[in-house]
């Protein structure tokens, strides 16, 4: 395992390259998930406001 991690002395270049690959794609996935949450919350808020306008509160 130690030999595998050492990458023949090139660990300082090989592992950061793999980290960049997965971190950048991870950021792409995360950005989409956060954007989906934001859009859904925004749209749900709009729908709630429209419903409130159409049906004003009738309690005394």
């Amino acid at each position: 395992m130690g030999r595998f991690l050492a990458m023949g002395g090139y660990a300082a270049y090989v592992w950061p390259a793999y980290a960049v690959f997965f971190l950048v794609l991870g950021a792409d996935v995360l950005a989409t998930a956060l954007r989906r949450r934001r859009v859904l919350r925004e749209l749900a808020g709009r729908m709630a406001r429209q419903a409130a306008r159409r049906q004003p509160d009738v309690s005394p």
Partner: protein
Amino acid sequence: MNAFKLWYHKLGSPPYFYLFAGYIRPWLWGIALLLAAVGLYGGLVLAPPDYQQGDAFRIIFVHVPAAWMSLFIYGVMAVSAFIAVIWRPKMAEVLAMESAPIGAAFTLIALITGSLWGKPTWGTYWTWDARLTSELVLLFIYLGVIGLYHAFEDPRQGARAASFLAMVGAVNLPIVHYSVVWWNTLHQGTTVRYFGPSSIAPSMLWPLLVMTIAAKFYYGASLMGRSRVALLSLERGKDWVRAEVAGAPAGG
């Protein structure tokens, strides 16, 4: 109209595309992860060290797929942009605009991993070589397309303007691809060929190809996820979006 043509036209409809994308996205993800696991095992464990570069060559399994994807995604984006500009279907605009950030991500990966590979093999992180410079220009064009899209109040107008830029920027694609042939560069030439034998050992070639296909499936999965969100936002107020918002959990 035959079944395929009918299906193709249905895909142009946002609510149908939203459903279709949601259905295939988990499959694309699954295949991408499975192939990546196989490719990484083949590349990091099974493939022997290179006789000249030792283990530093293993960067190839992330660098080359990312670099290929940076060009492939640009091609998809440019074709979608062309269709969007000529016939103006909304789906073509969405696919073009949502491809841009994924393409930019792969371009950034190609540049950074290439830089990390350059240090031990060339002795420098960066050089203004034709291949490196044209790939950097590719990143700037991607960023320009994304920026222009967001610079407009009306997303459809933004998509139209950014589509023009994407089409014009396509001239950079052959420059990136042929830069290692046209100019005398530090970057090595092509060793993987579609026609004729590749000058790379099979034990190194197959993990590279598997990682490349994994990257393609990842692109598909990411594009489906991004397009779904974009459609919800663009089609706000439509009945199908209201139904989706009313019933949807925030995940997926």
